[in-house]
């Protein structure tokens, strides 16, 4: 019988440590499938964050570097500048990219560093136990905003795709979701398009992925999907925010 579906080469056999209902597993698989389909496993270097995905490198079968919290875009800049032939991506969560790493991501995007960033947005700091993140929604309760995010005190949640798209340098910036199959299909297309831009030597790319964190949201996996659809999608709207072609047209 012909094999029609299998584990990507780029994914390792190691069972992951992620929680039930965590979308990291989905995203890891999408990235691995894209790397396989583009045939670039032998020249890919991933840069892992600090967060739940700190051990991401255990689940992929290509070269990987660990970065300090927030610094992955700087590490990726170093790699891509000295070895532009390598396919380089960072994989980062809310705290890593939008809080401590805000300087690094904005400047790497603004310089147009030709690597790809996979940004996992689940509105909380997962690994450290569910503290408030720059992406925590207004009124959302977390372990450091027990009364709900008070925007009078700490401001509005940050929309990363929109923010990075405001920079002048051409880039591919897109937000999709991985919470249901119909979204996952679009997410994979976005990830593949992002890596293709890198292979074409075109621009920086960032794929923001609306994700769930059942454990720290205090919901079941199924409830989390509903919560994300009802609360995150209206604020973190899906779609392509910037393409390099649109800058050429302007």
């Amino acid at each position, binding site marked *: 019988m012909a094999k029609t579906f299998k584990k990507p080469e780029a994914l390792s056999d190691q069972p992951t440590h992620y929680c039930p209902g965590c979308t990291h597993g989905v995203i890891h698989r999408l990235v691995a499938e894209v790397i396989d389909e583009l045939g670039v496993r032998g020249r890919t270097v991933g840069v892992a964050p600090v967060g739940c995905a700190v051990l991401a490198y255990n689940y992929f079968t290509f070269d*990987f570097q660990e970065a300090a919290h927030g610094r992955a875009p700087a590490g990726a800049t*170093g790699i891509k500048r000295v070895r532009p032939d390598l396919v380089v991506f960072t994989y980062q969560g809310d705290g890593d990219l939008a809080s401590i790493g805000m300087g690094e991501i904005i400047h790497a995007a603004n310089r147009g560093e030709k690597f790809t960033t996979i940004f996992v947005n689940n509105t909380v700091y997962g690994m450290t136990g569910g503290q408030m993140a720059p992406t925590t929604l207004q009124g959302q309760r977390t372990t450091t905003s027990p009364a709900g995010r008070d925007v009078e005190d700490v401001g509005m949640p940050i929309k990363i795709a929109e923010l990075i798209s405001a920079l002048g340098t051409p880039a591919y910036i897109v937000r999709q979701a991985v919470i249901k199959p119909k979204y996952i299909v679009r997410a994979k297309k976005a990830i593949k398009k992002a890596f293709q831009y890198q292979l074409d030597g075109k621009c920086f790319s960032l794929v923001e992925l609306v994700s769930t964190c059942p454990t720290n949201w205090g919901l079941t996996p199924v409830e989390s999907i509903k919560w994300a659809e009802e609360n995150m999608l209206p604020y973190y709207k899906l779609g392509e925010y910037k393409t390099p072609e649109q800058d050429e047209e302007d």
Partner: protein
Amino acid sequence: MGKILMKGNEAIGEAAIKAGCLNYFAYPITPQSEVAEYLSRRMPEVGGVFLQGESEVAVGYMLFGAAGCGARVFTTSSSPGISLMSEAISYISSAQIPTVFVNIVRGGPGLGGILPSQADYFQATKGGGHGDYRLLVMAPDGVQEAVEMVMMAFPLAEKYRNPVMILGDGLIGQMMEPVEFPEHLKSEPSNKDEWATSGMDTRNSKERNLVKSLFLDSELLEAHNLALKAKYDLMKQEEIRYEPYHIDADYQVLIVSYGIISRVCRTAIDILKTEGFQAAMIRPQTLFPFPERAIEEAASKDSCKVVVSIELSMGQMVEDVERSVRGKRPVHWYGKAGGDVPTPEEIIDAIKSFITLNLMNS
């Protein structure tokens, strides 16, 4: 190639290129911005990579990434910038990535001043970042030695898979001296394929490489730290460098000093000699590993009455000098911490006061 007159900062940049390092990431900070300005022009000329990062924090990790995939790379900065890079230095040390850092030290703490200083001794030799790591630290006494140490730093960093830090200061960075670039040193064959994330295809390998510093398992972390310590112990055996000055004479005073101020000490020693007073000096060229036994031996000479650590700081190296001397002789400190370099006369006065003190106490 004969001697050419070069500004220290520019010579340091050229030395890296001569050593085959064609990748430079940096951030401007006084008194070493000229290195970046020079290399922004030179690196494209030699087909190298130049990037001004957005902060020293980011630059530290650009080095991690670039060196982690096997490239020779370095940066230059000054004290407050090195503080910002200290996190990266800890990560780089643990991940065992060869890198070269040059600190053109300025006055501190805090924003401090822009004049020369040696107050980053603790930061460089005892660790400005967290955890059990050490840097191989070298300190030139002028532009020529700075060039030689920069060129030596890359093969040393690769030999030990460790960061190497060169402590210069604002004077060395700014002054112009005749420089001769040594022949390009031959490196040992590289073992980078064993660990660098250079891409599996590049290495013709099915094994992927992982560059990391996380070891959650206590036994693995202990084993890792033991392996790091073994490297540092090897450095202590093989990489101590120092320059003695007049230690064959029957000296009363042993000076320990490094970098720019050692040159003033040398003049002070020469002047004292004309007055019939013998002093000698041990000038550490590596601050880690520190020439402990050489200092102890020199201090133990029968004629030697006191040891003086002379530094452009409030006294940091003096603690290592005390430790080296093991109580055999009194150890004093003399220095300045505002950016002014003592004159030979001020050093002579200090030395004489310590001798007087010694006579009173004996």
